[in-house]
């Protein structure tokens, strides 16, 4: 069990800035995220798209914003727990205990939920029969490419992941690349390589079509795809790889006894505390009158939440508001001389 001052759920921009706001007040925190890296939606949904409304930053991409936030919180040596989802939250007097799906346990007087719209999960095939093959012959990511040797693989999708894995796996397996339209979205040199492989008969590209059905009992025997003009084709397949990006699922958060408003958590806008003392919500996941889902709003929200976190973590101390420009204590915490 790891003891800290605040457990931050979500390593998006708001979760990262929470580390900073807690850190300059002398509070330790840890961060848990279901993804394998920091950045949240900024990295997962729009790493290359410019953002124009971060105060005093006329333009930056999601990736740059994340990089700068990580730089800003470096002095605090915060521990991050990636690929972990918080499953359970339990009360222990004035503290909270948090359990992840990796069986890690944390305890702190404060939890800040900066979970965006929930945790990211792969968007799965909508066919009912896809479920029973999942993890055996239908995959939404490639963890170990050795497992995909000497197979008949049908790859679905039109973006980078679909194209990159088509190139890679075509070295030792038979690949059908299937997409709903004729155009693919990828780097020009990747597209050129794909075209070449098709011309050389190394891979087969099927467009514009979509998955119609999956045949097979224990293992997949074949799939049927349907073209836009209504024609269907049966393709010998033993493995399906599907790359339709990620979706966000609220997940277990809904079961923690917090007052919810649709998929958001109700907070008061004085300290962004939920109906449970010591549990805060900030960023896209919180709601209060006038809420705007902007990164800058999330920054404000964690700044105010961190004050209440301080009061709960250091009940014997008096909270003193300080400026980073003039506070020797803060400058020490930031490692500035």
């Amino acid at each position: 069990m790891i003891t800290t001052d605040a457990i931050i759920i979500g390593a998006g921009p708001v979760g990262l800035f929470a580390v900073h706001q807690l850190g300059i007040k002398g509070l330790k925190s840890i961060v848990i995220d279901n993804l394998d890296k920091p950045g949240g939606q900024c990295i997962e949904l729009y790493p290359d798209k410019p953002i124009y409304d971060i105060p005093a930053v006329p333009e930056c991409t999601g990736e740059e914003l994340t990089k700068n936030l990580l730089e800003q919180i470096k002095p605090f040596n915060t521990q991050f727990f990636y690929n972990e989802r918080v499953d359970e939250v339990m009360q222990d007097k004035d503290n909270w205990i948090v359990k992840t799906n990796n069986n890690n346990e944390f305890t702190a007087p404060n939890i800040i939920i900066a979970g965006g719209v929930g945790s990211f999960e792969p968007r799965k095939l909508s066919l009912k029969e896809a479920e029973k093959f999942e993890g055996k012959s239908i995959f939404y990511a490639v963890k170990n490419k050795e497992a995909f040797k000497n197979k008949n693989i049908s790859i679905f999708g039109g973006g980078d992941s679909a194209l990159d894995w088509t190139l890679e796996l075509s070295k030792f397996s038979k690949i059908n690349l299937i997409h709903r339209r004729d155009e693919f979205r990828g780097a020009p040199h990747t597209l050129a390589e794909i075209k070449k492989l098709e011309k050389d008969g190394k891979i087969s590209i099927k467009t514009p079509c979509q998955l119609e059905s999956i045949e097979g009992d224990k293992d997949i025997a074949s799939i049927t795809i349907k073209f836009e003009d209504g024609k269907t084709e049966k393709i010998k397949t033993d493995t399906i790889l599907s790359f339709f990006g990620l979706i966000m699922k609220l997940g277990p958060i809904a079961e923690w006894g917090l007052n919810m408003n649709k998929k958001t958590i109700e907070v008061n806008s004085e300290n962004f505390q939920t109906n449970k003392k010591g549990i805060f919500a900030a960023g896209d996941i919180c709601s209060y009158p006038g809420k705007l889902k902007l990164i800058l709003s999330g920054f404000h929200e964690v700044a105010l939440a961190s004050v209440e976190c301080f009061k709960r973590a250091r009940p014997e101390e008096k909270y003193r508001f300080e400026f980073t420009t003039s506070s020797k204590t803060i400058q020490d915490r930031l490692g500035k001389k």
Partner: protein
Amino acid sequence: MPKITYITHDGEENTVEVPTGLSIMEGAIQNNVKGIDADCGGSMACATCHVYVSENWFSKLEKIHDAETDMLDMAYEPKKNSRLSCQIIVSNDLDGLIVTTPVKQT
């Protein structure tokens, strides 16, 4: 005010008035219309506000941008008349527009 009709995949119809200048997605969210999730809040990053636009209306909409088409690749069962409802802005010309939501959105 323009009237927009949202039909769920199983035929439940919901006609609401949506002020001009709002998106079809926002009209759905503000009126608690089922079937449109809009997880990313309209930044064209999630494809959970995917709708099918009825044939006779599809051609009357402003042309689709590449980024929207790319995002529709991620949607469940996109068709020729697929659009992201966050990208359709309500105007008086769209009074009477009918959209259908797909079987599965998230």
